[in-house]
C-alpha cells in the first residue's frame, strides 16, 4: 500500500479527540469509572505522542524543504475563498507536536494522581483531551482558518478548565476574564486574517507566504498593520502587555492545567504564530520591533511583580508571562530558532515547576484537610522547610529553578542566552535592541531572584504550616513524582538540543528549523566570538548574582504564617498589588463599559429604543391602524351595502374603461 507521505497525519489530532468523546461520554454516563477514564485519557496522549514521533521521523527522512500539506476535504468553498481542511507538517510544527503530546502525556499522567479524589474526574480528562486536540489542530493547521479553529478551541478549553471548580465564584470569574480578554486578541487575529485574504487572495500558508514578498512592500502600511493585528492576537493568547492580566487569574484552575495550558503549550501559541508568519514579520520592521519591545517590556514588568507574590502559583504565573516575553523578544528579533528553543526548554522546566508546586499544594492541602484547618494551601508563608518532607519534589524543583535562572549547563541557560545574544547582535544595526537586551538582562536578574525566593520560602527555613499539620506532610505518590523525574531529566539535558557553535555544539535545533526560518529572515548580523563570550559571561554572572542576592537578603526565619502577616508597605505593596494594573483597567475599561451598558445601552437603547420604539411602537402603530379600520365596522348592514355597491361600481367602472 503506497500512501503519499504523511497521509495518516490526521491520526495525531484524532486520538485526543477520540479520548474526549469517550471521556465525555463517561463523564455523563459513569462518572465513577475512574480506571477507564485514566486509561483512555492518558492512553490517547501516549499513543498520540508515538504517532507524532513516527510522523516526525518520516519528515526527517524526507528532508523536505517545503511543508508537507495533506488535504482532507473542502471546508469553505466560497467564491474566491477556498479553504480546505488540511494539515501540514514542517519542522516547526514537528517541534510543537512533540512538545504538546510529550509534555501533555506527562501532565496527564500527573493528573491521575493529582485529581484522583475529585468528583469531576471524567469531565476533567475530557476537557484536557479536547484541549490537546485543539492545540494539535492549531500547530498542524495548513491555513489561517484551520489554525484559528484550534486557536479558539484552546481558548474554550482554557475557559472550561480555569473555571473547572465553577461552584466558587472566584473561579468562574477567572474563567470569564480569560475568555473575554482573549476575545480582544482574537479580534486582532480575525482582522489580520481578513487583511491577508484581501491582499493575497488566499489564506493557505503555502500560498500566502511565498506571495508575501511580492504582494507587500517592505515596511508598507498593509503588512505592518497585518503583523500588528496578528501580534494583538498573540498578546491575548500568550499573555503579553497589555493583555497579560488573565494569566495570573487563570491559576484558579487545577494545577496540572496551569502546567499544561497556562505554561507549556497554549500560551506559547502566540510565539508559534509569530514564528509561523516569519515571512510577514520579516517584511515589517515596525511589527518586529513591536514584538521584541513588548516582549522585553513584559519580561521585565512581570518579573518585578513576581518578586512580591506570596501565592506559589502566582509567582510561577508571572514567571511564565515573563518567560513568554523572552520568547517574543527572540522571535521579534528574528531569532526564530532561539525563540522556539526557549519555548521548548520552557515547556520542560515550567511544567516541572508547576507540577512540583502541584505536588506541594497537594501535600499542603492533605495536611490541612487531615486537621480540618482552613489556611491557604498555596501561600508560601504557610510553607517553609518542606524539603525535609518532600525531598524529591524539592530536588527536582531546584533543578528547574537553576534552569530558569540560566545557570549552565541546564536547558534554560542555552535558550535564554541565545535570545539575549541575538538581541544584542541586532543592536548593532538598530540601537533600540540594546535597550531590549538590557531589559532582558535585568529580567534575568529578577528571574533568578524571585525563583530562589520561591524555593527558599517553600522548601527551606523553619516550617510554618502548624504543629499538627506538620506530621501530615508527605511526599506525593510515585505516580505523581514519575512525570516530575522525566521532566527533570529533560530540563537537565534539554539544552543539548541546540548547543551553540560557541560551545562546540552543532546548533541542531537551528539546523532542523532552517527550512522554516530561512525563508523568513534576512540573516542576522552575527556577533564576534569575543563579544558572544562576554555576553554569555555577563548573563551567567547576572543569574548567579540574582541567586546569591536572594540567598543573602531573604530570611525565611523571619516570615510568619499568612494569617498573622502584617500588610506590605511602600514598593512591596505596589508590587504585591501588581502595579495596580487590574485596578487601572477596571477604572479605564471595565467601569466605563459597565456604565455605558447600564446607563446608555440598557436604560436608553434597550428600554427606550428597542423595547419602547421598536417593539411597543410597532404594536401601538398596528393597533392605531386597526382602530381606524374598525370605524368602518359599524354593525349597520346599510352602511356595508353602500360601501359594497360603491366598491362594485368603482371596480366595474375601472374594468370597463
Amino acid at each position, binding site marked *: 500500500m503506497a500512501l503519499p507521505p504523511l497521509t495518516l497525519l490526521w491520526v495525531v489530532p484524532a486520538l485526543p479527540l477520540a479520548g474526549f468523546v469517550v471521556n465525555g461520554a463517561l463523564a455523563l454516563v459513569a462518572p465513577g469509572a475512574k480506571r477507564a477514564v485514566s486509561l483512555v485519557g492518558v492512553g490517547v496522549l501516549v499513543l498520540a505522542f508515538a504517532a507524532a514521533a513516527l510522523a516526525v521521523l518520516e519528515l526527517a527522512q524526507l528532508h523536505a524543504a517545503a511543508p508537507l500539506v495533506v488535504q482532507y476535504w473542502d471546508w469553505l468553498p466560497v467564491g474566491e475563498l477556498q479553504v480546505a481542511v488540511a494539515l501540514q507538517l514542517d519542522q516547526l510544527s514537528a517541534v510543537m507536536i512533540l512538545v504538546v503530546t510529550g509534555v501533555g502525556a506527562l501532565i496527564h499522567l500527573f493528573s491521575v494522581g493529582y485529581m484522583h479524589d475529585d468528583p469531576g474526574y471524567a469531565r476533567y480528562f475530557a476537557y484536557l483531551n479536547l484541549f490537546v486536540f485543539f492545540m494539535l489542530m492549531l500547530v498542524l493547521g495548513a491555513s489561517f482558518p484551520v489554525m484559528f479553529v484550534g486557536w479558539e478551541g484552546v481558548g474554550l478549553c482554557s475557559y472550561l478548565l480555569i473555571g473547572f471548580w465553577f461552584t466558587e465564584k472566584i473561579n468562574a470569574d477567572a474563567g470569564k476574564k480569560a475568555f473575554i480578554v482573549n476575545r480582544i486578541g482574537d479580534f486582532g487575529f480575525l482582522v489580520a486574517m481578513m487583511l491577508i485574504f484581501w491582499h493575497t487572495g488566499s489564506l493557505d500558508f503555502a500560498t500566502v507566504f511565498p506571495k508575501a514578498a511580492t504582494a507587500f512592500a517592505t515596511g508598507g502600511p498593509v503588512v505592518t498593520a497585518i503583523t500588528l493585528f496578528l501580534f494583538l492576537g498573540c498578546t491575548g493568547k500568550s499573555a503579553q502587555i497589555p493583555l497579560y492580566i488573565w494569566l495570573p487569574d487563570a491559576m484558579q484552575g487545577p494545577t496540572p492545567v496551569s502546567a499544561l495550558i497556562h505554561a507549556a503549550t497554549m500560551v506559547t501559541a502566540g510565539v508559534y504564530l509569530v514564528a509561523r508568519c516569519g515571512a510577514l514579520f520579516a517584511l515589517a520592521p515596525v511589527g518586529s520591533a513591536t514584538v521584541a519591545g513588548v516582549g522585553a517590556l513584559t519580561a521585565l514588568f512581570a518579573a518585578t511583580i513576581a518578586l512580591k507574590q506570596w501565592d506559589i502559583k502566582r509567582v510561577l504565573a508571572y514567571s511564565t508571562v515573563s518567560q513568554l516575553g523572552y520568547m517574543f523578544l527572540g522571535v521579534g528579533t528574528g531569532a526564530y530558532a532561539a525563540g522556539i528553543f526557549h519555548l521548548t526548554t520552557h515547556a520542560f522546566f515550567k511544567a516541572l515547576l508547576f507540577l512540583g508546586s502541584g505536588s506541594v499544594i497537594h501535600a499542603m492541602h492533605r495536611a490541612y484537610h487531615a486537621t480540618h484547618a482552613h489556611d491557604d494551601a498555596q501561600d508560601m508563608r504557610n510553607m517553609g522547610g518542606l524539603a525535609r518532607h518532600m525531598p524529591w519534589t524539592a530536588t527536582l524543583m531546584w533543578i528547574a529553578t537553576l534552569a530558569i535562572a540560566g545557570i549552565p549547563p541546564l536547558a534554560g541557560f542555552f535558550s535564554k542566552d541565545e535570545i539575549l545574544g541575538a538581541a544584542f547582535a541586532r543592536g548593532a544595526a538598530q540601537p533600540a535592541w540594546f535597550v531590549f537586551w538590557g531589559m532582558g538582562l535585568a529580567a534575568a536578574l529578577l528571574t533568578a531572584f524571585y525563583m530562589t525566593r520561591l524555593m527558599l520560602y517553600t522548601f527551606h527555613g523553619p516550617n510554618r504550616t502548624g504543629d499538627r499539620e506538620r506530621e501530615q506532610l508527605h511526599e506525593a505518590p510515585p505516580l505523581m513524582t514519575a512525570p516530575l523525574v522525566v521532566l527533570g531529566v529533560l530540563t537537565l539535558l534539554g539544552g543539548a538540543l541546540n548547543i551553540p557553535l560557541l560551545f562546540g555544539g552543532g546548533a541542531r535545533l537551528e539546523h532542523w528549523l532552517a527550512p522554516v526560518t530561512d525563508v523568513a529572515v534576512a540573516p542576522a548580523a552575527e556577533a564576534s566570538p569575543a563579544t558572544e563570550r562576554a555576553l554569555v559571561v555577563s548573563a551567567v554572572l547576572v543569574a548567579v548574582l540574582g541567586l546569591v542576592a536572594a540567598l543573602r537578603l531573604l530570611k525565611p526565619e523571619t516570615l510568619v504564617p499568612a494569617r498573622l502577616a502584617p500588610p506590605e508597605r511602600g514598593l512591596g505593596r505596589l508590587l504585591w498589588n501588581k502595579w495596580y494594573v487590574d485596578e487601572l483597567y477596571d477604572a479605564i475599561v471595565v467601569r466605563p463599559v459597565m456604565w455605558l451598558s447600564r446607563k446608555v445601552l440598557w436604560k436608553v437603547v434597550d428600554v427606550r429604543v428597542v423595547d419602547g420604539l421598536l417593539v411597543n411602537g410597532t404594536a401601538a402603530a398596528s393597533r392605531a391602524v386597526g382602530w381606524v*379600520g*374598525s*370605524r*368602518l*365596522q*359599524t*354593525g*349597520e*348592514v*346599510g352602511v356595508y*351595502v*353602500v360601501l359594497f*355597491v360603491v366598491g362594485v361600481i368603482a371596480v366595474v367602472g375601472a374594468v370597463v374603461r
Partner: protein
Amino acid sequence: MLLEPALTVSGVLFALGVLGVLLRRNAIVIFMCVELMLNAANLAFVAFAQQLGVAGQIFVFFVMAVAAAEAAVGLAIILAVYRHRRTVDLQNINLLKG
C-alpha cells in the same frame, strides 16, 4: 333581436334591487331585493346567450341553483334572528361591529 329591451328591463330590475337593498330596513324585503338583482343578472345572461352561445343559458341554471341554496340559508338565518330578537328590522341588529 330583442337584446336592447331585454337589457333595459334587466338594468331597471337591477337598479330596483340595489335601491331596495339600500333603502329598506326589513331583512325579508332586502332579501327579496337581492333575489331581484340575481334575476336581473339572469335576464342579461339569457339575452346575451342569443348571440354568444348557450354558455349564458347554462350559467343561469347555476345562478338559480345557488339562489335556491342561498334562499334556504338566508331564510334560516333570518328566522333564527327573529326567534332571538323578535324583530327582523336591520336597524336593531347591529351588535357585530368594531
